[in-house]
């Protein structure tokens, strides 16, 4: 469409016609003139030479025009063609009767051409060239002036031609200006059109992407059937409700969206308790304080996961783990919240069963052990029929193993307590030297039996921490008994107590089997046993270090370990020192 318009416009354009095309009217006029001369007897040829010069010049100009048409780079010289034409017509006029020739008017055609060229000096060129073409024959004597009128005509006609040229030049100029404007408009329109098409294509592509994303989102939204996903505005009014929420809470999307508040599905008491926990003064929040408590963390910018009870539509309670996040607009302002909940009934049941199991172990294992140990003791105390030394030795083995089993039960129970967060500490001021000495004393017989020397290094001043003496003693016992188990006969275990300005350090160093560097990370994991332990058949189940670390951590302390296989291991317990004058705790 645009192409066709352009082509049409090009044909009409003043600038566009080729020199040949512009020359064509003159050629046609020449042909008509010649036809008239041949066919009309009254038309006399007064000077055949001039006539042929004129014809020749027009043909030459036509040839030049044709050449220039082929070579557009010569365009600035194109005005030469009509100028030659003007002089050719002058000659033609002389050849056909001079001032009486009827062909003088033919001069108008090349003059129009000259006048229509771009700048205004062409007006002058038209005037001068026509004037010269008319007057030159007199100067050369080819024509003889018969009257003053002929001379005047030589000036007068060019004057008329000049006026005409001026008018044509102005018209052409205006036409060119308009044409330029039209052209610019057309170009602008074409550009706008192509840009619009480009935008349209981009829009279409964007829309397709959006539709795909929308399908993806809808698919996801409907696929989540085991988690309740609920969206609300900043007041808690529900505006999004997924199939999981319907399944979990028993009401449909239609019934929930825009009609219900998210806190309708919470236990009011829980929300109030949480608000109290967060120290909300009464009436401090504009919104429902329970709702504010629910979204507190999300509002402050951190996602929060916490256990709550949901109240179903039928009034039953469902324990859930609920993550709350804020929804924001483009400026980052909070416009609502998202609540993602999953049912933790099973998790809670598992935790309950675990507690029950631990209780069962504690009771069902301790009771038979109580009988075993009690009756073994009665056997040992039998006064009427005393046992033989050999029998007493067998009895000792049975007792030792029963005690080992008892310790294991205790360790298991303690590990379970640590895991469930029920880890009671009986805090008091503890002078560590006493703890370390007691641990070394109780390990003495074992060390002697194993042929390992047990050394202690104690500081002169007291080293006091705040802690549970029983648990701290248990930590020391564990480390020393480990060190003894892993140290071959002839080796040594040294236990030292030192203090930095802020920390107490209990170090247990052995010359034992050591631990592979790659295993140091897992050392404190439950039931983990180092390969040096399994390879050398060192007894144990892998709970001692787990328990020791749990105790130290509960005292805000840290545990460190250094080891080299075949050289030895060094465990360090670092505990924060009791502040001076912390007697209040006692």
């Amino acid at each position, binding site marked *: 469409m645009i192409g066709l318009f352009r082509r049409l416009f090009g044909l009409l354009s003043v600038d566009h016609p080729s020199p040949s095309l512009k020359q064509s009217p003159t050629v046609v006029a020449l042909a008509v003139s010649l036809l008239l001369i041949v066919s009309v007897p009254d038309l006399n040829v007064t000077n055949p030479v001039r006539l042929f010069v004129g014809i020749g010049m027009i043909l030459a100009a036509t040839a030049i025009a044709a050449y220039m048409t082929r070579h557009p780079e010569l365009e600035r010289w194109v005005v030469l063609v009509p100028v030659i034409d003007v002089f050719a017509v002058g000659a033609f006029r002389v050849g056909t009767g001079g001032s009486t020739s009827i062909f003088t008017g033919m001069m108008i055609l090349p003059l129009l051409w000259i006048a229509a060229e771009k700048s205004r000096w062409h007006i002058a060129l038209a005037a001068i060239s026509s004037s010269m073409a008319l007057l030159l024959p007199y100067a050369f004597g080819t024509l003889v002036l018969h009257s003053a009128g002929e001379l005047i005509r030589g000036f007068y006609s060019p004057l008329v031609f000049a006026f005409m040229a001026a008018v044509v030049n102005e018209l052409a100029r205006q036409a060119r200006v308009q044409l330029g404007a039209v052209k610019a408009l057309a170009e602008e329109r074409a550009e706008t059109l192509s840009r619009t098409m480009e935008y349209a294509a981009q829009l279409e592509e964007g829309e397709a992407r959006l539709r795909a994303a929308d399908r993806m989102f809808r698919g996801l939204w409907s696929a989540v059937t085991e988690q309740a996903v609920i969206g609300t505005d900043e007041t808690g009014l529900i505006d999004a409700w997924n199939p999981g929420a319907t399944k979990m809470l028993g009401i449909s999307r239609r019934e929930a969206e825009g009609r219900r508040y998210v806190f309708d599905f919470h236990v009011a008491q829980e929300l109030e308790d949480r608000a109290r926990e967060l120290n909300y003064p009464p009436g401090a929040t504009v919104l429902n304080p329970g709702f504010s408590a629910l979204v507190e963390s999300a509002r402050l910018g951190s996602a929060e996961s916490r256990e709550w009870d949901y109240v179903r539509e039928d009034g039953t309670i469902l324990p859930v783990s609920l993550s709350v996040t804020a929804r924001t607009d483009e400026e980052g302002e909070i416009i609502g919240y998202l609540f993602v909940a999953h049912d933790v009934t099973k998790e809670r049941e598992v935790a309950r069963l675990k507690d029950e199991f631990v209780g069962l172990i504690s*009771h069902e294992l*301790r*009771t038979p052990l*109580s009988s075993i*140990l009690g*009756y073994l*003791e*009665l056997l040992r*105390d039998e006064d009427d029929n005393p046992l033989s030394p050999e029998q007493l030795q067998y009895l000792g083995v049975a007792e030792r193993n029963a005690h080992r089993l008892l310790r294991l039960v205790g360790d298991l129970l303690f590990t379970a307590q640590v895991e469930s967060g029920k880890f009671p500490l*009986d805090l008091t001021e503890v002078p560590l030297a006493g703890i370390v000495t007691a641990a070394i004393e109780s390990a003495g017989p074992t060390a002697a039996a194993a042929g390992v020397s047990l050394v202690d290094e104690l500081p002169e001043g007291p080293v006091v921490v705040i802690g549970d003496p029983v648990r701290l003693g248990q930590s020391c016992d564990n480390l020393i008994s480990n060190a003894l188990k892993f140290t071959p006969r002839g080796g040594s275990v040294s236990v030292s107590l030192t203090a930095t300005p802020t920390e107490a350090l209990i170090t247990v160093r052995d010359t034992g089997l050591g631990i592979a560097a790659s295993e140091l990370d897992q050392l404190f994991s439950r039931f983990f046993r180092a390969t040096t332990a399994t390879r050398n058949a060192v007894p144990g189940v892998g709970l001692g270090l787990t328990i020791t670390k749990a105790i130290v951590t509960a005292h805000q302390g840290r545990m460190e370990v250094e080891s080299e296989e075949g050289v030895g291991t060094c465990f360090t317990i670092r505990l924060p020192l009791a502040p001076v004058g912390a007697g209040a705790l006692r």
Partner: protein
Amino acid sequence: MNDRRVVIADDDPDIRGLIRISCRKAGLTVVAETADGDDALAAILRERPELAILDVSMPGMSGLQVCRHLREDDSLAEVRILLLSAAVDEHSIRAGLEAGANDYLAKPFSPRQLAVSLAEQWATLP
């Protein structure tokens, strides 16, 4: 010493045996042995002994419940109560003493030490 009478309650007959032997060694007379809390309470109300040794976790009433019942009855204020349990944490011990027990003994226990401690207690009492 024959007027020191004891009621023993534990669902495990072997543990009851250990306690019985300890009591005998301490010179006490076991007047009733029961395997659950309800029977224990009935036996104590019937026998009105000087001492009751109660396991905490028993079928029927727990040792703690029996203990609370006894402490509600002023006429039984003279009965000493020793609770016996496998739970040795602070919380359980405190709960036992708060229920009105005079003493709390953790399983496993040494029958030798139990006998000595019972004999000592009785020797110091009027």
